């Protein structure tokens, strides 16, 4: 017989004492999360940091911004400062002097005429070789010289001076050593060819020599090639006065016509060597300065327009979305109407009214035009977010507790719109920059009269000469491409980082 206890099936020695209530008299609550809390912003920053491409792009962008801000102050050139003769010169860095790279030199193949002329005034740095080219049509052989030329050497130019300017220059010139003189002896263009019977040819040669200050020697009648003497030397034809001294000026009315060495004259006028780190454009303006100030304009416009557009969009979208009803319908019709107007029409109208009619700076007109319709996208995003959140329970609760409209809008609903606003507006600055450069490239916006430059205008100028001077278009093209690529990669990275839907997606 079994006792009471043995009535229970004893299988593995488990007694009822082994059973206790787990949470008997304990408070039941959620377990505190042990891991570190990561807020929205911190998470976005963390995920952005994981994106190496964006970091690199952001760094390049920062460098470009610094470049644009700082460089215009350090180059020592003005945006529209043009030298009469330093046009289309190549990039030159004094540190690379004579290396053949980045020193303003290039290899050219020239004929006899130019070879002699270049050599005569020191444009030729090195002669690589001479080749002979036979022309079947003319049955002649011409020599071709492959030379390294210094694009910064122009030799001499004729220039007119007033008496006081001439005296000042002469005073400075007299102190220079003999081989560094700015004022060079004048050329006698009349005597040596006085015997020529063909007056037309003679006058053509004379006028050529009167404008080209580098022709200091006799040239052949027809071809313009140098005329050598019997020993094969150049026959110089400087002008001498009655005492047999060089003549240094011609008095033309009250103006002094001088033959000056342009390189040395440049140093006299500007107080520094002509050094253009990225060369000059077709009107002789420093590309580096223009590039940096063009970039500065683009960036300033891009950022300021974006910030204002975002603020306007937030305010407009918040009012639309929060109040809804008739307010929303009216405001939505307005923004729909604005969005249908092509931006080029808006920009043109602002341009016509502000710039043509009232001489407002075109940058301001462009700024206003970009703002006129630029906020629509942000407003739509914010409106949508407001519609989504304004009827949620927590908002109703806050309203019941007496929160004012302003508090509800900015404290309770708006934070939900921050993510989408960031994701929809990070690509706004590059968009503005692209529009600005395209408009100035097309010539619809013209900054020239206002001492401002833009990348688009530089590209448009460079396009005219790119077959002969690709250098002029190359730099602005590289600059704007790099800027846009970096902006896009950086913007995409930022957008992904702030996109709440992608949260945690990178961890897998």
């Amino acid at each position: 017989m079994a006792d009471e206890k043995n009535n229970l099936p004893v299988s593995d020695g488990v007694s009822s004492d082994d059973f206790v209530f787990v949470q008997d008299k304990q408070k039941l609550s959620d377990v505190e999360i042990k891991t570190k809390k990561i807020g929205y912003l911190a998470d976005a920053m963390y995920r952005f940091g994981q994106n190496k491409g964006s970091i690199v792009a952001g760094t390049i962008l920062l460098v470009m911004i610094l470049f644009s801000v700082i460089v215009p102050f350090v180059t020592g050139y003005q945006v529209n400062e043009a030298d009469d003769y330093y046009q289309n010169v190549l990039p030159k860095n004094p540190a690379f002097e004579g290396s053949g790279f980045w020193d303003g030199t290039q290899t050219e193949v020239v004929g006899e005429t130019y070879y002699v002329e270049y050599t005569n005034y020191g444009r030729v740095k090195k002669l690589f070789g001479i080749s002979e080219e036979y022309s079947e049509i003319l049955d002649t052989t011409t020599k071709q010289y492959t030379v390294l030329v210094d694009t910064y050497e122009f030799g001499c130019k004729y220039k007119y001076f007033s008496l006081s300017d001439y005296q000042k220059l002469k005073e400075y010139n007299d102190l220079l050593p003999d081989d560094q003189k700015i004022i060079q002896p004048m050329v006698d263009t009349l005597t040596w060819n006085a015997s020529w019977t063909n007056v037309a040819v003679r006058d053509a040669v004379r006028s050529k020599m009167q404008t080209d200050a580098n022709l200091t020697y006799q040239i052949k009648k027809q071809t313009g090639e140098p005329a050598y003497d019997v020993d094969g030397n150049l026959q110089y034809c400087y002008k001498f006065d009655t005492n047999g001294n060089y003549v240094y000026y011609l008095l033309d009315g009250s103006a002094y016509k001088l033959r000056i060495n342009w390189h040395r004259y440049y140093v006299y006028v500007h107080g520094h060597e002509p050094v253009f780190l990225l060369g000059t454009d077709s009107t002789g303006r420093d590309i580096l300065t223009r590039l940096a100030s063009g970039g500065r304009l683009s960036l300033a416009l891009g950022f300021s327009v974006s910030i204002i557009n975002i603020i306007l969009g937030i305010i407009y979208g918040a009012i639309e979305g929060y109040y809804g009803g008739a307010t929303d319908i009216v405001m939505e019709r307005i923004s729909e109407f604005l969005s249908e107007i092509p931006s080029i029409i808006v920009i043109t109208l602002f341009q016509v009214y502000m710039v043509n009619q009232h001489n407002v700076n075109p940058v301001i007109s462009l700024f206003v035009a970009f703002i006129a319709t630029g906020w629509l996208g942000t407003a739509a995003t914010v409106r949508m977010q407001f519609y989504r959140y304004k009827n949620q329970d927590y908002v109703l609760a806050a309203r019941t507790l007496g929160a004012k409209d302003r508090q509800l809008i900015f404290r309770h609903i708006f934070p939900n719109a921050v993510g989408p606003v960031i994701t929809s507006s990070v690509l706004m600055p590059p968009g503005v920059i692209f529009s600005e450069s395209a408009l100035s490239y097309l010539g619809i916006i013209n900054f020239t009269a206002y001492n401002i430059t833009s990348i688009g205008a530089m590209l448009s100028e460079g396009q005219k000469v790119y077959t002969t001077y690709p250098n002029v278009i190359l730099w602005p093209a590289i600059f704007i491409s790099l800027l846009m690529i970096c902006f896009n990669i950086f913007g995409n990275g930022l957008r992904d980082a702030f996109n709440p839907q992608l949260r945690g997606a990178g961890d897998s």
Partner: protein
Amino acid sequence: MWKYVLKRIGLMVLTFFLIMTMCFILIRLVPDVITCTPTDNVCNSILAWREALGYNKPIIVQYFLYLKEIFTKFDWGIGFKMYKNQSVIAILGEKLPYTMYVNFFASLMAVPVGLILGIFAALKKNKWQDQVISVLVVLVISVPSYIYCFVIQYFICYKLGWFPLIVNSGSVSLDWSFFVSYLPAMLCLGLGTVAGLTRYTRAELTEVLTSEFMLLARAKGLTRGQATVRHALRNSMVPIFPMILGEFISIISGSLIVEKFFSVPGVGAMYIESINKLDYNFFMFLSMFYVAIGLVAGLIVDLSYGWVDPRIRMGAK
């Protein structure tokens, strides 16, 4: 459905007239005085034309006269400062073929390439082929079109000399040499389309490829190719098709930048000229032309969503 379409068309017409009124008033408020010598016949006939259309009367009278001409004769006026004394419509008729020609062939070449690249990238997702395509797409989308216009013109046309530098401005023909002279411009126009379409197709297709019904399709025994072509592709086309449709509608409007770069004698060049010279009638007409294209394209693209995907009910609440 038809009610919705009619409502959209009504709104479209309303928007069109609002924009037209605004543009007209703002443009006509800009003073534009023409003085003629008595012997200049062209100039005097322009003056007579302006007098007849009430240029010395209040703006509102001018506007109604302008509308009357448009509604009765579809006459949008004549050029004052460019193509003087010639009908605006006739000039557009001359220029439009060039723009349409270059854009049509550009789209025709770009759309298949974009689709194929996008599909290829989606199928090779995260492999090196996909990475290469993605990098190229980002490059083309980021770099402004005038830059690759320059690159193409400089290297292909100038350095290599494969194509002429400037397009043939003779009358539009289906000649091979005519086509070749426009090829670089088409290339530039097409690059942007290819990049956009590739990116979009890849995104859509990768999304569809990971959806559940693809798993089902594979589970019921379809090969990967069958499942992709019959199920994934068709579904991913829902948002892509309207995009292609929009692309083909926009062949009428063209690109200002590419047309300027390659000196295409098209509508874009004419529009830029009208802005720079501020010719009343040309600016008004071309602006409204672009507005109309934009509005119609928007409407057709929207409606095509419902047509392509029966799940989308147009105008449903």
